[in-house]
């Protein structure tokens, strides 16, 4: 059986709240290697849960999550951590940049757990910042950067380690339209270098900028 780069089979996720919250129900989804996909749906539809499962941040209540031919439920916590450090890059709506570090240091921190030497981390951080057009801002701290620039630093951090897949959760949610557009361009560029890129968004207009849209509603993939 040939599996897609990311493959979900009958995946359900139930949060043990009172009453239990069914975030995903029997989801089947294939995302091929090198695809540029937008997962789109309204707030509370289960998009972020989907990202957490595909990004090995969480485990499903039922079903199988396959990534690069490996079924995630068979991995230990340490193996999942290693998979995240080597194969997966994340971009979040809130950027999560460390305020006391420069842009370069923030990007280099993204490769900390990959076991790379500091000099190599710095070199790759500089190269990644150049890829997102922020080479000149490498020595600036997040407080000295605009929101769009901060998000591009976060993208540089996600792609600097050469991941196989990049997940972006509402990457333009906190940005104006022009900055959002630049962020999309950076994600598209990352995709052109070979990474599978999955973007979570509630913005249909933004989703249309990507090659494929996956619609999620009430925990189910609708198309």
């Amino acid at each position, binding site marked *: 059986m040939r599996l897609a780069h990311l493959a979900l089979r009958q995946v359900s996720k139930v949060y043990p709240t009172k009453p239990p919250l069914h975030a995903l129900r029997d989801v089947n989804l294939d995302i091929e290697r090198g695809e540029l996909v937008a997962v789109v749906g309204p707030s509370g539809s289960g998009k972020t849960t989907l990202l957490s499962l595909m990004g090995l*941040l969480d485990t499903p209540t039922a079903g199988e999550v396959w990534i690069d031919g490996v079924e995630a439920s068979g991995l230990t916590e340490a193996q999942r951590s290693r998979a995240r450090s*080597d194969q997966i890059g994340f971009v979040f709506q809130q950027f999560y940049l460390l305020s006391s570090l420069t842009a370069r240091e923030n990007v280099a921190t993204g490769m*900390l757990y990959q076991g790379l030497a500091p000099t190599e981390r710095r070199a790759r951080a500089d190269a990644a910042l150049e890829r997102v057009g922020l080479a000149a801002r490498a020595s600036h701290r997040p407080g000295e950067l605009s929101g769009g620039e901060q998000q591009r630093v976060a993208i540089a951090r996600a792609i600097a380690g050469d991941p196989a897949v990049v997940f972006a959760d509402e990457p333009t949610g906190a940005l104006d339209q022009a900055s959002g557009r630049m962020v999309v361009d950076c994600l598209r560029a990352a995709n052109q270098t070979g990474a599978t890129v999955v973007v979570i968004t509630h913005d249909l207009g933004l989703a249309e900028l990507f090659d494929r849209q996956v619609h999620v509603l009430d925990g189910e993939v609708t198309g």
Partner: protein
Amino acid sequence: MKNPLRRSARTSANQPAKAGGSQEDTQVLAPIAVPAPLNEIVQQRRRRLRPMDVLATATLGPRTRLVRASLSALGIAIGIAALVALQGIPASQQAEFRAELDRQGANLIVVYPGHESAEPDSAVIPLPETAPAMVGRIAPVTGVLARRDLADVLVYRNNMIPAGQSGSISAAIADGDLLGTLNVNLAEGRWFDAASRTVPTAVLGNGAAERLGVGVGARIWVDNRWWAVIGVLERMELAQEMDSTAFLAPDYAADLYPEQPLASIYVEAAHGKAGAVRLVMAATVNPANPRGVEVAGLSDYYAAGELVDDMFRTLSVGLGALALLIGGIGIANTMVVAVMERRGEVGLRRAMGARTGQIALQFVLEAAFIGFAGGIMGVALGAYATFLYTSLGDMAFAIPWWVVAAGPGISVVVGVLAGLYPSLKAARLSPTVALRAI
């Protein structure tokens, strides 16, 4: 086996890519290493962070929130400072006390003849004549003086004084290094030399000279003959029986009063060795009958001083421990708040591949770092307080070395203990919960 993704990354290396609209062409990096598929990656050995990376990560929080970390460290610093100062001040006092006792001859041990039994009027066991030489061979002994009392010999200012008015001045023969052993100087004149030992000369204790009202150059009347006073000793506060004695020329007096028993032996021990020397004294003086030897010591004053110091030290350890506990609670509080505030960072690090143990280690080391900084501050503060105290009291400055060494160590332990719970809490945070927290 090669990863198709990485092949595609390399093949697209020459394509210009759009980044940031009008931005310059993007640059594609070379792959990190021989690309490995996920099933190979997850089988690799567990990676450890480099020590410098561990250190940089652990100090990131305190460096970012310097004021808060400093205030937390201050709690520990006060505890350590209390410990250092409360150890240092009594140590300085003790050093001063010992110096004062030493100045007055308190490292002295005095050996007297013992009795047959505990009854006061039981027979006296004389000290063996070999005792002074034997005692002199004890390694830490730096001076020995044998004293023979001339019990029936009375001392007068001159031959006109009525027999009943001797002024309670004893006559004695002192053989050995009196000046060195008793650590006393001459107020005037000199001690016996090879010549004066053999002629009727005398050296007076300060009290004796005062009571007799004589000085060097005068003569005193002892046992129906004149003795020339050649020296007067300085006052000895702690050896008053020596102070009211007239010491007669040893060789001349020994001929006059042969076979006088040893009344006492004064032994000077090296600094701090009086206790050890006392332990072996009785057996050395009279190996055949150690129970027949009475050993007393002006060094008993040391014991009294140490008892007071011990009480002070116990109190200071108690106070220091209390202050450290409060400091530890401060660190725990800071770390709990730090973990709550930095849940996003925890989530991000987990997303970037940090294991739970690495997150726990980061926060434990951060707490240890705050504790260590507090410990260093505390030692400095405590030392300064002790210095101020001793300066004002014109005392010698002394802090036990172990306090300086243990201060930062103790504070690191306090930091680790205080940081343990918050760190485990941070490590147990699910990445999704941590990322959702903001």
